[in-house]
């Protein structure tokens, strides 16, 4: 079973850069232009590159590992899971919710999140003289 994707900062950025009420819609006169460090986030667009990557993943897919053949793989995936796996998933879900809560309400900044932020390839500085512009799209690949 795959691990959890990064929680925290990526989820937060997904949410607060592109959602919520836009203050510019309510206030015009005393809006202050402030420099916002934006993250150039990548939109998920399938390209030839994606296709080739997917094809290679399919090529490498180890069907022999469970040489019961494909139908088995499928029924395993869709069918009743084993006891242990179920437990793992339940805990996963609960922990994830707990983590987020704690993360978001507790610490102001956590080192792991800062670190993952630094991996972001492109951080650009936008000087805005009027109201903060937001052509930033929060859609991004998280891995």
């Amino acid at each position, binding site marked *: *079973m*795959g691990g*959890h*994707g990064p929680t*925290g*900062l990526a*989820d*937060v950025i*997904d*949410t607060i850069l*592109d*959602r*919520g*009420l*836009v*203050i510019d*819609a*309510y*206030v015009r*006169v*005393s*809006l*202050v*232009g*402030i420099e*916002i*460090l934006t993250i150039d986030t990548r939109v*998920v667009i399938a390209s*030839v590159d*994606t*296709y*080739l990557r*997917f*094809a*290679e*993943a399919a*090529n490498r*897919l180890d069907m022999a590992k469970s040489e019961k053949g*494909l*139908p088995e*793989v499928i029924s395993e*995936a869709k069918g009743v*899971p084993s006891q242990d796996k*179920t437990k793992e998933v*339940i805990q*996963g*879900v*609960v922990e*994830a*919710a707990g983590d987020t*809560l704690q993360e*978001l*309400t507790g610490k*102001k*900044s956590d080192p792991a999140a800062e670190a993952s*932020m630094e991996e972001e390839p492109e951080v650009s500085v936008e000087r805005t*003289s009027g109201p*903060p512009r*937001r052509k930033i799209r929060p859609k991004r*690949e998280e891995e």
Partner: protein
Amino acid sequence: MGRSTKVSGASVPKQATRQRQNLGSYVYGIVPAGTKVPADVQGLGDPAGKVKLIEHEDIAALVSDVNVDQPLGRPGDFLAHEGLLDAMADKGPVLPFRFGGVLASTEAVVEELLAPHHDDFKSALDQLQGYAEFVVKGRYAEQTVLAEILAESPEAQGLREAIRGKPEDATRNERIRLGEIITASVEAKRAMDTQMLLDGLTGHYMQASLRDPTHEWDAVHVALLSERDDQKGLEKAMKEFGERWTGRVDLRLLGPMAPYDFVLAQG
């Protein structure tokens, strides 16, 4: 309303009375007047501003002072913005603003934001009473879903056999076609699984808002407006999906959060 005397703070010459800081009022969101701000929360900026409530009749704005000469957008700033709003959403209704809204002064917050829009904000807060947002994120297990797709598509299976053991250059067209099939299949599965999840969670949300995928293996990305008191019920229903999708979809439930996906800007 239309006072034109105030100019964008950033372009105003620094006031001699202020030390060297040029302060603005960063606005996080709107809450009912009388709401308690937890003592331990900090605002954004460096140094972190103290979060305060600016009240006007029945509503109040959550603000903190911020130095407008310093850029915003460090990880701590993002986390502080959402952290405060989500902490408030855990207790009562809140209208979240998007990241980055700064007004020239606390007076401007009252005169230009709270007073002119008092009734709209108040009725939105009333409607959100008792509700909070939750976000469901699901990620496909690549191996499992690839195997599913190959099993379901004879064409994909044929292409896979055609490229086996052959150099990439010699099978480029087959690879592209195979990749296209996989992409289209993932999209179809995403739509189907999202619908299945929404059907399965019926009764645990009042509204749902689909979010765009943020990753090519995203299975589900949807925001739900749910009763805060039903958090346990929602978690339980999610667990059932987690069980059903074990090894296939990795599910996460985020929240309670402020209703970012359910507030609509006017105009």
